């Protein structure tokens, strides 16, 4: 046979076709600093917003908590530490969520599971996330409770943009 056994699309169109030849799973994870930048990079406004909302809810429960502003600032820097209080009136400090992760589990070319998770930054700007209980995160001295933080491996390589629009001056299409 001179043709592909199947032809499938994943993101194009509104009705992804079932893949018949691919059953493997892939896990991807992306780190974004805003819903807007997520949409700009993925063209997927629904999942960006879902993941962001999920991350925000999770941040309220899973963000590291500190007994004092000083302890929080020592870990996360002065700009992000916010006072909070729990249901029984105890006050504490926690860092703002400055990014969110989208974890996607794909099987047979289709998204079967999608998770949003909050991301925080330490003083040096390194990204970290609340660690799963079993994963053995970094213990935070001075923190309340048991939230351990784990570094985020795939950190976005970042550089402040000083100009845009230096490519793309061609007015017509580029194809040939």
């Amino acid at each position: 046979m001179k043709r592909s056994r199947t032809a499938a699309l994943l993101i194009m169109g509104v009705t992804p076709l079932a893949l018949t030849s691919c059953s493997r799973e892939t896990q991807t994870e992306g780190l974004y600093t805003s819903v807007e930048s997520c949409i700009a990079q993925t063209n997927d406004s629904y999942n960006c917003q879902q993941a962001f909302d999920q991350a925000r809810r999770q941040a309220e429960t899973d963000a590291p908590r500190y007994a004092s502003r000083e302890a929080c600032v020592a870990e996360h820097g002065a700009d992000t530490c916010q006072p909070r209080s729990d249901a029984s009136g105890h006050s504490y400090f926690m860092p703002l969520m400055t990014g969110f992760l989208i974890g996607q589990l794909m099987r047979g070319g289709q998204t079967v599971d999608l998770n949003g998770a909050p991301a925080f930054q330490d003083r040096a700007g390194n990204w970290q996330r609340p660690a799963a209980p079993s994963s053995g995160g970094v213990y935070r001295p001075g923190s309340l409770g048991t939230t351990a933080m784990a570094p985020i491996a795939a950190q976005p390589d970042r550089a402040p943009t000083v100009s845009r629009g230096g490519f793309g001056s061609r007015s017509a299409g580029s194809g040939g």
Partner: protein
Amino acid sequence: MRRVAIPPRANWRERAEQSGFRFHTIDGEPYWDESAYYAFTLHQIEHDLEAPTEDLHAMALDLVGAIVASEERMRRLDIPEPFWDWIARSWQARDAHVVGRMDLAYDGHAPAKLYEFNYDTPTSLFEAAFFQWQWLDDQQRDGRLPVAADQFNSIYESLVEALAMIAPQLPRPIRFAALRDAVEDQGTSDYLRDCALQAGIECAALAIEDVGLSADGRYTDLDDAVIGTLFKLYPLEDLFREPFGRHLPDSGLRLVEPPWKAVLSNKGILPLLWEAHEGHPNLLPAYFDDGADPLPAGWVRKPLHSREGANVRIALPDGERIETAGPYTGPAIRQAFHPLPQFDGRHALIGSWVVGDRACGIGIREDASPITRDSARFVPHAILEAGTATLLA
């Protein structure tokens, strides 16, 4: 090779809609045309198209090393000097390449002749790889084509495989970029990204106009993230000459298609191929154009960087002249005139796809004019044994 009329699928517009094929009609004119198809024999496909495509591809790649090492040749190809070392390094490192298309004139009998390579920003990829495949599948289900019918089209499988192979060498996510408002380019770029996602590669998309530059000369996305790998459906020669271009060699950016493709997406490769393989059955005589007017009868003049059949001038053997408009100026090549075959009064051009280094499929474009332009219609094809098409059509 025959042109055979066939009823279009009743639901083909819905099929196009479902698959995100938005440019099937351009400026009110059909671009996708399934009121007919081209029928080939397996021998024609394998012997006359597939094998020559692989030969021509290998012959072209064989020349790259000598070209990038020669200042005289790089100048001849009008590649700006600041990029010579960078291009040579990308060849020495064999930076990964993914996809290219070569255009062939073939009438079903005589050897296919190479018109040109589209090795940097080839379009009509989605139509060839996906929509044409689906057309055959649907027509077989509807009983209008025999189940034994086939198609020279493993482009999709080849793309997913090639992308999966090269991904480990590339910083990820791979960002796919094309001009924001070029619907056809965006569709092609989306299709490539779709295939990359199916290969399990992290991807993102942005408009080429949105690429940013940091103070230290690296390229950024809208989120100020540094772009490690840019799969751009945008001409290398334009990147070179635009304001951000001078940072390319030191930015650390990995480009797909890679910088060395600037040598092959350039029509100057045609005279260099002829010089190296004069008389090859699949090549047309070609020379660098000295600019002398008038163009002698029996020759075609093409600017080095012309695309979509723009700024092509033909002096037919009988002396008549045909010329297309366009934005391209600068140095040109001259190629021996070799007419496209006509089927039912339409000039048919074969786009033969190479993914990685494998010839893996074709797409056919028909134009009313002897020069195939961006308005040429895409007509699907099938492989049939002789006789079956007329019985069933």
